[in-house]
Each structure stands twice: as structure tokens, then as C-alpha cells.
């Protein structure tokens, strides 16, 4: 590989890392801060991807829309639709014990995958949606991906800032208190269900936007892309490795995990072609070993829980 080739691969790698970082920040909002058990990230991811694809592609006979709207509106719509989905899932489940939400989210994620696979009028079925526009395509020529990376970084920065600001506020204090002792929070007159729902919906919004970024970057999406392994469990591993309830840890967890995940692709790519099925299983095993090593040496994840405080006068 030439130097330029290495550089453009690095940019490509960082864009994917960044998209996963958005997902991990989102899961940290739900799981780390609010203790919500979402194991259907793939569903929100898919909804975000397809929403933005339908919104921004030119009119097509193959799927709903497209509506030819600008990229920014695509992102926004992706976030809003994913948030709405979270709200609807949350209504019956969020006041129940946490495992119910887990079951509901994983179930809905599979249903969503089946819907986009089978409802051709909506999503063009297994053939997927191609030609999802990149914003300002052609800009910067060969180095276009640098521009896209900047967009991803900007979105991470916004989400990181808002998440930190939220958790370091009275709102975040209530959220943290709910994790500690719900009864106390209720006795103080706070609607626990409302706060949980807000964290769930906010996290889902972020996942929707992350899904949209994915769709625009790859230009092509199909139901294959939203399998639980890559879309849900990898994000969980990132969160666990970085350390739950720590936004910075989420970013580092995403970087390391994605690094190892793509690294294993190189390794298994060296195996003879006859072993491709074993190779993908091997990748899962390798990432599992990595997770084990981290958990055995640092059960809290690399960074552990951050100390948050609503009072600006305190550190």
C-alpha cells in the first residue's frame, strides 16, 4: 500500500469508528446513565438508515419516496423516527422490570429487519436501497472522505457535549438517582418513568442519526447490514470495554473494539477461501477473547464510571 492508500484507509476506518462511537454514546445514554437494557440497537440503526435513505434519494419506483430532501433533513428525520419508535416501545415496557425492555427491543429489531426484507414497496426488500447521496458529493475530489469524517466528528462533538451537559445537570442527577434508589426519587415527587423514557428516546434519536450517517457513507443499505452481531452486540462490547456511564470511555471503547474487529478481518482474510464461514465465527471468538481479557483485568471497563455532578461549583 502506498502512503496515500494508508491515509485514505485510515480515514475510512475512522469514519466507521465514528459511526460506532455515535451508537456507543447513544447506548451509554440509555444503559450507562439510565440503566435501560436495549439489545435491539440494530432496529434503531436500521430505522435511521432507511429513513434517511428514503428522505434523501431521488424519487424511485423501487421503494417509498424518495423525497430528494437535503442530507441534514435526512439526518433529522432519521433521528426523529427512531425516537418515535423508542417512545412507542417504551410506553408499555419502560415501567416494567428492565428485562422486559430487553425482550421488547430485541424482538422489535428482528421485526424491523423482517419488514424491510419483505415490504418491497417500502424498502425494496432484500435488494436494498442504492445510490443514497453523499452530502456535497464531488467536493474535495479523491479526498471526499475527509469531509465526511468531519461531519461525523461534528455530530459526535454535538452529542458528546449535550450528553455531558445533560448528565451534569439536575436532569442527570435525577437519572443517576433513579439508578441508585428509585423509591427515593419517587418519594421526592419525580416521575421516574418520564426520565427513563427521555433517556431512552434521546438515545434512540442518536442511534437514528448514527444509522443515517452509515447509510449515506456506504451509499447502499440492505437488510443484511442490520444483523445483531455487527449492529447491536459490537456496540455493547464497545460500551462495556470503555466503561459504562462514561462518555469518553464510550469513544475509546468504540475505537479499540472497531480496531480489533477490523484487525481480525485482516487475520481471517489470510485464511484460505474454503474457510470463510469458520473465519467469521473466528472473528466473533477473537472479539470475545478481547472482551474477556478486559473484563478480567478491569471489570469496570477501561475507564469505569465517571464522577458526575450537577453543581458547577464542585469538580
Amino acid at each position: 500500500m502506498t502512503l496515500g492508500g494508508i491515509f485514505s484507509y485510515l480515514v475510512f476506518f475512522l469514519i466507521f469508528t465514528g459511526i460506532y462511537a455515535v451508537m456507543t454514546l447513544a447506548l451509554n445514554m440509555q444503559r450507562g446513565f439510565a440503566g435501560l437494557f436495549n439489545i435491539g440497537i440494530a432496529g434503531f440503526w436500521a430505522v435511521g438508515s432507511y429513513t434517511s435513505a428514503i428522505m434523501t434519494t431521488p424519487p424511485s419506483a423501487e421503494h417509498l419516496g424518495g423525497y430528494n430532501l437535503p442530507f441534514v433533513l435526512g439526518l433529522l428525520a432519521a433521528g426523529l423516527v427512531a425516537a418515535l419508535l423508542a417512545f412507542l416501545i417504551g410506553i408499555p415496557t419502560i415501567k416494567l422490570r428492565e428485562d422486559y425492555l430487553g425482550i421488547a427491543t430485541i424482538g422489535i429489531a428482528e421485526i424491523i429487519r423482517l419488514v424491510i426484507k419483505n415490504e418491497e414497496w417500502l424498502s425494496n426488500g432484500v435488494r436494498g436501497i442504492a445510490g443514497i447521496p453523499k452530502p456535497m458529493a464531488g467536493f474535495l475530489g479523491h479526498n471526499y472522505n475527509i469531509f465526511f469524517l468531519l461531519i461525523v466528528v461534528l455530530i459526535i462533538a454535538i452529542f458528546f457535549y449535550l450528553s455531558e451537559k445533560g448528565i451534569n445537570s439536575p436532569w442527570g442527577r435525577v437519572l443517576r438517582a433513579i439508578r441508585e434508589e428509585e423509591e427515593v426519587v419517587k418519594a421526592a415527587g419525580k416521575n421516574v418513568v418520564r426520565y427513563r423514557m427521555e433517556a431512552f428516546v434521546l438515545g434512540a434519536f442518536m442511534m437514528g442519526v448514527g444509522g443515517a450517517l452509515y447509510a449515506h457513507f456506504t451509499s447502499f443499505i440492505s437488510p443484511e447490514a442490520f444483523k445483531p452481531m455487527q449492529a447491536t452486540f459490537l456496540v455493547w462490547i464497545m460500551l462495556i470495554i470503555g466503561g459504562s456511564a462514561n462518555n469518553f470511555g464510550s469513544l475509546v471503547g468504540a475505537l479499540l473494539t472497531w480496531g480489533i474487529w477490523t484487525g481480525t478481518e485482516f487475520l481471517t482474510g489470510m485464511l484460505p477461501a474454503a474457510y470463510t464461514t469458520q473465519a467469521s465465527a473466528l472473528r466473533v471468538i477473537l472479539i470475545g477473547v478481547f472482551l474477556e481479557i478486559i473484563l478480567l483485568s478491569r471489570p469496570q471497563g477501561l475507564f469505569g464510571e465517571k464522577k458526575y455532578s450537577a453543581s458547577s461549583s464542585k469538580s
Partner: protein
Amino acid sequence: MLKVDKVVKEFNGFRAVDECSFEVKKNTITGLIGPNGAGKTTMFNLIAGSLKADQGEVYFSDQKVNSFAAYKIARLGLARTFQIPKTLKKMTVLENLMLVPGGQSGENIWNSWFKSSKVKAEEKENESRAYRVLKFLELTHVADVLAANLSGGQKKLLELGRALMADPELILLDEPGAGVNPTLLNKIAKNILKLKEKGKTILLIEHNMDLIMNICDRVIVMNDGKHLVDGTPAEVKSNPRVLEAYLGEKTA
């Protein structure tokens, strides 16, 4: 102010509260006493909405609150302490208190993002209020300590502190004196009286009879989940049925 009407609560067929009725008048200190297991704490949980009554009604500030969620009842102006302290363990003592006040604008995520200056000003106010409560409870030196690291008695005081932060109309105190040193207990008694002067209503569970006799306007006695008697402290003290409940069956 508060009325409990033939309330029943069963746990697996066992009647912890059994057709119990009583009333608490506004701006009084009412004691709720009875032997261990009489159903006093269960009654608190029913009033505060942490438990739902199987039968009977609970009225608070002119509303029937049986089916209300606990947080809604709290918002009507009720604060309660827990007999076995419940603290936000991984949060500081100060944060445990600052959580409590209602209507904080920063509890709205939108405000916390975009109305920082208003939220900060309120937080300052909230913080000084918390420090006043800490000073009163002689806990100032542990303001920044995680609640998990408090001693048993300090946790009890933190319970009381949360109730004080709430600034409610009706305060349910479940054994505020248990495990608290006598000098501080005196101070707490004085403060309960002060709360009454401010127009608040207090319902107080306590096994310390001196405290009950000294500060209560009325005393309600529960036994085996039932309302046994009520009256002034003097009346209750001299009532043979009360003595029997405390000593009779149990020691016989």
C-alpha cells in the same frame, strides 16, 4: 388533612393492616405508635403510595389518593422518610439533598441544555438550602462524602434531611430518633415543633415514648394492623388497652 378509612393490606394472606381508620388534623403533630410489627410502616407506605391498599380509602388534601402513583402524592405536598434509610449510595450527601426540591427547571433536559444561567442560579439557591439543612443536622463536614460511607445514624439524619428539603405540607417520619444521639434528638424534637409552628402537619412513628409524649398533640395506637385507640398523649398513656398491647399478649 389526611384520612385513612378502613384500609386493608395483606401480604400473602397475612393482614399487616386490618381495616384501620384514623384522621390527622392539619397543623398537628400526631404520633403513630404500636408494638413491633403492628403495621405502622406498612401504613406509611399505603399513605405515600409506595404500596396500594387492598381495600379502603386514603384521602390527602381533599383528594382520594389510593390509586395515585407515589410521585403524584409527593407532589400534592407529602414527604416521607424511610425507617430503614434509603440513600443514593454513589452520590454525595449534598447531592442526595439537592435532588429533592420539586419544580427545578434544570430537571427538564431542554432547560439544562439551553437555559444554563437560569439552571445555575437555581442550583446555587438549592445548594445553600441544602447546606442549611446539613448545618442543622450537623452533617456539614460530610457534605461531599458519598452517602454509602455514612454511619447508620448519619443515614437516618439524611432521611430527615430529605424530608426537610421537600418543604411539604404533611411529613411522615418513620422513627427519626432511632440510632440518633440524645442531644441531636432533642434538637430534632425542637425542629419538629418548629415545623408545626410554620403550619406543617407531622405524622410521627416513634418507639421513644418520651419524644412522643413531649411533642405530640395526639397519639394513635396500632396493634395487629388495627387501630386500637387514639387520644391525647396522657389519655393514651393511661389507657389499659395500650399497656396490654405492648406487654400483655406478647410476654404472656
